[in-house]
């Protein structure tokens, strides 16, 4: 009788230990998965921020020359990419003078890629009839790139 009771206790203890091990394995696995997932996301975040920082540092462009041809309402912008990576110009804002003398900002959404080490000419057309430029004035334009940087340049009217 006593021997049977001991055997029963031993079996019970064995089962409880097996349950404990199972709980430890499952809980440990869940904790480890959550931890590694968090680490992975943090790594991805750090990599993304590093890439963004690198892209911003690598981006170096300059406007070689810029003209507004008032005879045909074309804007000619000559860019030089002397940075370490190709860059994309996404938006160009050019102020214009409306009939009546008000200044209006014209937004040109473009997607012009300037390869590294290359010179590229971007030609924009001003199709609006209610804006213009007095001859000989200097116009300050803003240029957005894909990295979010904004460059300001003075261009002049010709024609």
């Amino acid at each position, binding site marked *: 009788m006593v021997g049977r009771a001991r055997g029963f206790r031993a079996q019970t203890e064995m089962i409880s230990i097996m349950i404990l091990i199972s709980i430890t394995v499952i809980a440990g696995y869940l904790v480890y998965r959550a931890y590694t997932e968090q680490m992975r996301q943090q790594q991805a975040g750090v990599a993304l921020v590093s890439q963004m920082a690198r892209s911003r540092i690598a981006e170096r462009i300059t406007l070689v*020359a810029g*003209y507004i041809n008032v005879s045909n309402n074309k804007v000619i912008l000559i860019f030089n990419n002397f940075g370490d990576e190709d860059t994309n110009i996404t938006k160009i804002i050019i102020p214009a003078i409306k009939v009546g003398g008000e200044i209006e900002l014209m937004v040109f959404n473009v997607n012009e890629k300037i390869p590294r080490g290359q010179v590229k000419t971007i030609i924009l057309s001003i199709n609006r009839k209610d804006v213009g430029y007095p001859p000989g004035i200097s116009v300050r334009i803003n240029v957005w790139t894909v990295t979010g940087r904004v460059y300001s340049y003075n261009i002049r009217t010709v024609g």
Partner: protein
Amino acid sequence: MITGLKAISNYIAALITVTMIFTAIAFFITASIRQVQISNYALNTMVEVSERARENLALSSVINGQNITITIVNRGTLDTPLSHLVIVSKTLEVYEYTINGTTVPVGGIVNLRFQLPVPPDQIYNIMLITYRGNVFDVLSTTNKPLTVYVTPSDRLISPGEKFNISIVIINNIGSTLRISSDYIFIYFRNETANLTSYFVVNNVFPDETISIEPGQQVILTYTYEYVGGLSPTYVDIYILIEPRSLLGEQVYSSTYVHYYLKTT
């Protein structure tokens, strides 16, 4: 056996803990390496930006027919690699020329020759771009290798009359230049024709090769005789100067004076 089984859960917990510690260390090391890489890259970029500010080129150009010769003198403290030449016509057409591979050494002189894509009077602007991103105006430069002044002894010239042309040449580059009359070419013109054959050189002073140091000047005096044969006309003068550096490099510069003198 039961004791051994009890220890397994502890082993598993320890294994998970050790793994998490090593993962954290690996993450820390990776993040640090990335940070160091970015810092080094930013530092290199700052050096490049500061080098860009140290570029200093003196430019002059001579247009001969449909060709242009651009003399580039490096007055800065860095070798300057060139990247592109951009020519803009008066109709605002843009012509780009890639000149990668040409570097102007410190104190050195490089001549670039190009065929103009449009007639010279249709040129609006010519710009030279360096590899570091600087843009230099070729035609409207204020920092030329040579400064040249030309003065006549007389403005109204009769047939058979002698007159002097004094040419003042100032060396603006950072090295010695050798100048002689062999390197100077003088042409007389009016609006319609080349009149050089109507003027004969009698004398040049000095007639030997002269070395002028940086910042120094020399005056050469040419004595010409007008042989006659022209109806009264205004005469322009075009002077092409091609002095040599001590290394034999050639500097091209020119000057054009309208209404320089009048024949009677």
